[in-house]
């Protein structure tokens, strides 16, 4: 897998965010200000556009540039967090032009790290992390156990879905939802939904 794959991945994520624009608006309208559908579709469109026509072979640079474009386009909470994920992935993958399966897992691992460093949230705080963290764990575990990438990707997607659903058992401690305190518990976290959508898009790129 090389730059072509990464660009394909960015396109699938863009498409799923555009397709789920209203779904995310609705989710965020319940707990926040309802902008998440707009910022995620605008942001991932910008990320994809920024790398689409580049000849850049360095996968790290591609990811970093996608992140910078996203941060410029949508400097909102989740916009900046997603940008930070891309930029961290870019730093970790820097110099690579070919990817192993484990490199793919490292992209998501670094993405998770980038978001966590930027947002300083912990797993269990009812955020994006609660969707992506179980997915990254599942992906790495499966690959380490010798599974093929398509199988591992499906396991990661399932884990993200479960992580997302599990946010209805958590109290929000960051962002707008946090002002609700205990009353936030039963609500689905919109940021975790974004993590689930990313994993769905990823699964599509390898399962076909």
């Amino acid at each position, binding site marked *: 897998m090389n730059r072509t794959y990464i660009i394909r991945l960015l396109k699938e994520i863009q498409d799923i965010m555009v397709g789920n624009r209203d779904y995310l608006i609705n989710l965020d309208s319940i707990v926040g200000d309802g902008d998440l559908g707009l910022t995620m579709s605008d942001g991932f469109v910008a990320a994809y556009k920024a790398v689409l026509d580049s000849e850049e072979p360095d996968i790290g640079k591609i990811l970093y540039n996608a992140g*910078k474009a996203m*941060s*410029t*386009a949508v*400097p*909102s*909470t989740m916009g*900046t*967090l997603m*940008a*930070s994920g891309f*930029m961290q992935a870019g730093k970790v993958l820097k110099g690579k032009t070919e990817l192993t399966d484990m490199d793919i897992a490292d992209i998501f691992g670094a993405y998770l790290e980038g978001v966590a460093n*930027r*947002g*300083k949230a912990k797993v269990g705080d009812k955020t994006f992390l609660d969707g992506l963290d179980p997915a990254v764990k599942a992906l790495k575990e499966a690959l380490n156990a010798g599974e093929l990438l398509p199988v591992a990707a499906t396991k990661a997607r399932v884990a993200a879905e479960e992580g997302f659903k599990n946010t209805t058992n958590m109290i929000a401690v*960051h*962002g707008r939802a*946090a*002002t609700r305190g205990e009353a936030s518990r039963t609500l689905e976290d919109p940021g975790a939904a974004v993590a689930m959508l990313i994993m769905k898009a990823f699964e599509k790129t390898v399962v076909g």
Partner: protein
Amino acid sequence: MKKIINQPENYVNEMLEGLYIAHPDLITYTNDDLRCLVTANKKEGKVGIATGGGSGHLPLFLGYVGKGMLDGCSVGDVFQSPSAEQMLAVTKAIDSGAGVLYIYGNYNGDIFNFDMAAEMADFEEDIRVESVVAGEDVASAGPSKEGEKNTRRGVAGIFFVYKCAGGAADAMLNLDEVKRVAEKAANNVRTMGVALTPCVVPRVGKPGFTIEEDEMEIGMGIHGETGIRRGKLEPADQIVDEMLEKIVNDIPYVNSDEVAVLVNGLGATPLDEQYIVTRRINQYLKGKGIKVYRYYVGEYATSLEMAGFSISLLKLDEELKGYLDAPAQTPFFVQL
């Protein structure tokens, strides 16, 4: 929505165009981007101070860029953070080798973007950046415990942080020292507000919340964030007493402490009323044995056309007094 505007989409950029036209001697912009506002009088060798945040709070944030206060400000859409890229452009323009201090309000979007900008400045430009986050609205959360993150919103009191840090930078202190002064101010300022009417974000076109004709909301944030309590509108003196009680018990202030006071109009409240409030603050603080070193009264941090006001107290020592008294000249604040 009764606003004197053209297309709501152009609200921020048209405002900025007017601003540059009116104050060409004090401010300009960098990076071909109206939203990357910087001083027109860069002082070589001085620590640069940058701020930034969403629009809709004039004179906050950009209005304090000038001589003796801030050097640059990145400007977001109404109630939205500017981007890290814009912050970086401002940072590059105002750095003159002594490093840059970011001072901004405690909001998620702003924090994430300023942190990202600081990293970019370090990695990409080799500019040393430090940050001080102002969060002093006692109505928004309890005091943070030792080592814990401060979760209070930043509101009008940031003016004092700007002023003291600006004075320290203008006195050519180094980055660590300017940061120390800014942190001291941020740690010693407390604010509380009250809102009487909502405001309308131009692109939204309708009020962010509703409030009855005879009601007020004590502790409401400058984007309409929920306050401490909603109740019948009371006489000015009673409102002031309730707000000061919360502020004074928070630091806490003790007899013979000296403070600077900022009475801040949120937008639609006439100056007359702000002075009626000032009168009561004076009575209240006298009663507690707290000395007022200096008053500032007027619109320093607004919320579009919201009616209401906030009170900020800054606990002073000799060092802060000196920097507070230092001269400054910006489009919205001039002190001799």
